[in-house]
């Protein structure tokens, strides 16, 4: 039987499912850095230009999300590594976001109705 155990496997699935791709070169890293700097400059523009105050929150959130995604995808190599690693970050990230929004709503209600 031990021989059978050694040879008759019907599956040899690698534990985390898929292989990763090669990391990008320096040129891509520099381009990402330029984008990050540009996005930061856009954030500052939105902050200082009073005509944009009405859209301050959504625009800043989108810009921050874009910067976050650029660093995570290119510098942390999630774009090139196994999907497992993306899942390991994304699931708690979603939980963290929901937690943050939930707490803000709960405390906003508390502040309005109870003080």
């Amino acid at each position, binding site marked *: 039987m031990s021989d059978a155990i050694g040879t008759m496997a019907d599956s040899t699935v690698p534990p985390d499912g898929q292989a990763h791709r090669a990391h990008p070169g320096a040129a891509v890293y520099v381009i990402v850095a330029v984008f990050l700097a540009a996005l930061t400059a856009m954030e500052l523009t939105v902050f200082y230009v009073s005509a944009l105050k009405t859209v301050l929150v959504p625009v800043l959130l989108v810009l921050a999300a874009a910067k*976050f995604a650029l660093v995570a995808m290119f510098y942390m190599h999630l774009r090139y590594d196994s999907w497992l690693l993306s899942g390991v970050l994304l699931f708690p990230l979603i939980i963290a976001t929901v937690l943050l929004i939930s707490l803000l709503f709960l405390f906003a209600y508390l502040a309005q109705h109870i003080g």
Partner: protein
Amino acid sequence: MAAQPKPVRTESASYLGGGGLLGWLTTVDHKRVAVLYGASALVFMVIGGIEAMLIRMQLWSPGSTFLSAEVYNQIFTMHGTTMVFLVVMPLELGAFANFLVPLHVGARDVAFPRINALSYWLFTMGAIFLHLGWLWGGLPNAGWFGYANLTERYFSPGLNIDYWVVGLLLLGVSTVLGGLNFFVTIVMMRARGMTYMRMPMFVWAILITSVLILIAFPPLTVGLVFLLMDRFFGTHFYIAAYGATPILWQHLFWLFGHPEVYIMALPAFGMISEMVPVFARKPLFGYPMMAYSLALIAFLSYGVWGHHMFATGMGPVADSAFAITSMLIAIPTGVKVFSWIATVWGGSLRMTTAFYFALGMILEFTIGGLSGIMHATAPVDLQQTDSYFVVAHFHYVLFGGVMFAIMGAIYYWWPKMTGRMLDERLGKLQFWLTVIGFNATFFPMHFLGLWGMPRRIYTYGAGLGWTDLNRLETVAAFILGLAFLVLYINLVRSAAAGSEAPADPWDGRTLEWSTASPPPAYNFARLVQVRGRDAFWVEKYGAAGSRGGPMLAAAQPPGGEQAAEAIHMPAPSIFPLTIALGAGVMGTGLIVGWWRLIAIGAGVMILGIIGLGFEYPSWGEEGHDGEPAPGGGTDLRKVGVWAFLGSECVFFASLISTYIVYKSRNAGGPGASILEIPLTSFSTFVLLMSSLLMVLALAATQRGDRLWERIWLLGVAVFGLIFLGGQAYEFTHFYHEGLALQTDLFGQSFYTLVGFHGAHVAVGVLWLLVLAAAAFMGRLGKSRALSVELAGLYWHFVDVVWIVIFTLVYLMQQVKVA
């Protein structure tokens, strides 16, 4: 420094033998660590049990003076804390999961053996802190939930809560490290052929529990950090007089506390799911649904914390949402109960003690589950809150559900762990004493609660009509105590002179039964190839659905065959114990207010961590001979770092939430308008560019370019130092402008959030400097690119957290939310 680990000859016998005391103090073998956890938990179970007896003796008669109110507070606080953190969790996760997960998945150890040992020693240190009050200063006294602001220095001026905070922080770190270890072990180290849908249900339960640990413990850690700062550094995170809200603690605690119920319950579900099929001689009914149910329970468990807080006035929308999620969680839980019943149905039952406890668990847990659904209904819950009805409910869940499962698991796996059988007659005696004692203790509490008896009171009036049932409960509690005495007698008798256990005493279905009892240090001489669900059963009888019978062949079980060659196993290490001792010294220094002691403890910890990091030439956890290569070329350590970063997301979300809630509560202070955008923009730019240098350093290391590897690594560290310098300047400037840590809620939440980020940057800089030093000594290079990649992941995470902080704290400084 230890040299390369010595190979273990496959002729070596049980993992229990050899090494002496030093061997146990420095062990990294998952089975020995499991024994350490198990032995510790059994000691604490005696302490927690005696505390329960004291509670019941006090409540024997109305107006009792057996215990004072203060001592009663300490005893019931320690009973809850001990049972949750020092008995149930260490038994389920520390002992059983540690022992079984590598055996179940066909591995030779956990992913990070030395971190596993560190988890145990941190657990021990935390447990010691929780119990120091017996000797000096009094035990913790604000309940296991530690509601603010009972825990504040003003209301609890002694050392009681100081011990509790430090102890729980250490236990939290220990648990998160353990969860991380199990997660990586299960995801990355399963034997060839063991797909997710072939894993034993216990492994599924531990996998899901690990995820829960990683996302549930950070809010508790943040809550404890706030409490620690209130008690030691003069902040006011939970004091209403300063504009704060004690409700913040309740949210942070129950964000941990309800998932914690499932952190305790899911492993119990896994244990039952292993025992029932073995003793019914049938495959687990509805395996896929059982696995999905575990995942759904865990997911929903993170969204039900509010049902502990209906009485705080969260509003109809929040109440409705929490009521719905709390009711929904009954569905996957019901699936599990019906699956167990369906597995038993029509089976060839063998009525062993383990099976008795498994059946008992299904019944008792169902009763607890039904009263739990009652709590999900907000109007009903308001009547039951803080009454003995709640005490009845959670004991039916945690004793009837979890403890029954643990008792069954002890009878089921003790022979594998020790090589000795337990006495079945004593076991059945214990079972019936437990059933009688448990139900007679806790079922009447439903009535007492509905009759209005509040929980946590140290005495009650004679004319309230509660005396008779309280007396019944006290008598029954002693019957329950007798049941535990029988268990301990059985354990001691077995250890001393129990009959020898065969490798497979129950005709088991999973891989641990394929190796010797007790297993050898290396678990399996040959690495396992799995051909189906119920892997060992398939090898014995050909198909998972077979009801047994003669084995197909009397050949070697999978992995049990003696290999000719030696096997390399992780070598013992003194550093886990060293780090834990350093943490203990730090905690002691904090409590006694001796800062030099904190510095000494921190120094010992840092040296221990560096020692751990450089103990082996491979600079990381040792590989285990012949382990299957991690899938997709992904390294174990990389998955571990990512899991840690995932947990950190929730940690920072808790800090950021608090900042946003408190930022406009700036009584007397300058408030958010003090924040300077030009300076912080420069710091942000520096940090973003440091990330560019970090990836360039990694690229240089990967291509073997030693010159640029050194330059970029030093560059990142210098950029990090510039960032920290900017933060130091900012903090100093704010202080001179009148914004101290204690000034107002804005100040304390700002300094805590940004300060924690800065501490992360400082750790990153230290890590990078160590790597740069290694690079200059010529000890880095292409073969160790992973070391740079791991540091890089951490550094980039620090960067993305700052992206969020820069936006939410600095750029949105005028936006008010709560």
